[in-house]
């Protein structure tokens, strides 16, 4: 099986087309062929990989998912042991709650919360290097990826996939637990490092599915 179906949730704020093109380009460079669809409603359909992108406020992100009945779609996808990929805000939404939006429940698929970065200069914006802790991704360590965010994930070590550092604060740049994975940075804006990472993600997906 070298063919995977990919759905990208398109109802959360952010430039979805950049991610779409990044995924498409990465698949052209890898030996995994993808069929990619944008998802705007909760229409029942199965995907091998579901991308949850998003930028902006935690509250707005959850509101959009709830309004469009997408929480159920995501939960069903996870129950079926398919691959779920959170990107930027999408990664933060995987967790239980955020300091950015007190009282708003996240998807709670991963244990942990989202807290504000301590750095005096925010957002954390630009290229930063990431160290990957998992064997499947480890050789991508020291590559620079493009970040834009003010909040970070605070979770148990067992779901940290990669770490980065900003103003002496070390925090998760990527998370992973079973078939759920998330990236705080934007692979679609990270040039060749981003393409390599997405290619590796597809290989990992094949391995997991």
């Amino acid at each position, binding site marked *: 099986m070298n063919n995977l179906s990919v759905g990208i949730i398109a109802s959360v704020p952010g*430039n979805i087309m950049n991610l779409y*093109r990044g995924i498409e380009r990465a698949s052209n460079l890898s030996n995994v062929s993808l069929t990619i669809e944008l998802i705007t409603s909760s229409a029942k359909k199965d995907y091998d990989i579901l991308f949850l992108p998003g930028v*902006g406020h935690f509250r707005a992100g959850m509101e959009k998912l709830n309004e469009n009945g997408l929480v159920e779609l995501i939960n069903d996808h996870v129950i079926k042991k398919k691959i779920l990929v959170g990107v930027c805000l999408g990664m933060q939404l995987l967790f239980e709650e955020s300091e950015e939006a007190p009282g708003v429940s996240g998807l709670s698929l991963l244990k942990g919360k989202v807290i504000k970065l301590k750095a*005096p200069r925010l957002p954390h914006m*630009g*290229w*930063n*290097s990431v160290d990957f802790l998992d064997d499947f991704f480890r050789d991508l360590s020291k590559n*620079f990826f493009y970040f*834009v965010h003010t909040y970070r994930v605070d979770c148990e070590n067992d779901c940290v996939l990669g770490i980065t550092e900003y103003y002496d604060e070390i925090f998760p740049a990527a998370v992973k637990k079973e078939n759920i994975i998330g990236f705080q940075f934007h692979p679609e804006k990270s040039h060749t490092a981003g393409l390599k990472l997405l290619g590796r993600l597809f290989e990992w997906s094949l391995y997991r599915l």
Partner: protein
Amino acid sequence: MLAKRIIACLDVKDGKVVKGVNFENLRYSGDPVELGIRYSKEGIDELVFLDITASVEKRKTMVETVEKVAKNIMIPFTIGGGIWELDLAFELIYRGADKVSLNSGAVNNPELITKIAEKFGSQAVVVAIDAKRTGRGFEVFTHSGRKATGILLEDWCRTVEELGAGEILLTSIDKDGVKEGYDIEMLEIVRNIVTIPVIISGGAGKKEHFLEAFKNGADAALAASVFHYSEIEISELKKYLFENGVTVRI
């Protein structure tokens, strides 16, 4: 650690790249998207496209440039040059620009900064400031450096940060196109006033100038002609900076 950024600026007129010396004597040197692809392969960290088209077609050419760039280039980019209206700023971001750069438009209507920041986050708003030494000190100029505003650089920097600007793109009119180095005096003044990132612009002629800018607090350094005419190779510049202790993306 967060890398210092090298940014290439492409002045675009009627869909073609030009570069001014002291903002005049425009010369042609290529297609913006092709040049952008070349730079991203060579390791540029970000691109700025400044549309200096003056005709009624301007809006259309800006939107087309943004779409073409977003489709072909996988690094962050900024579009600027005569953004005076909020709906144009919004459209450019919807079409794929990561950031918009405001200059005269922000001086004319500072509220633009806040409105864009509220909708897309402060990182989406770059305020470009062109300043020059005058009898009043460092004074802000608009309209491609032709119009004195009477506003002092220090005051304008404070204001734009308060209004929600995510970055300042600081161009020294005195140094621009001269290739004798960035305006470190101006950089230091701004660095001490704001906490948001400062992109220094105007005056790069050799690798040492970039190192000097980063050692004096610049978060990013922007250049145009030295890259367009291959006077400095981006990969060599990065190597040089790395060897001199600057964190760069290699």
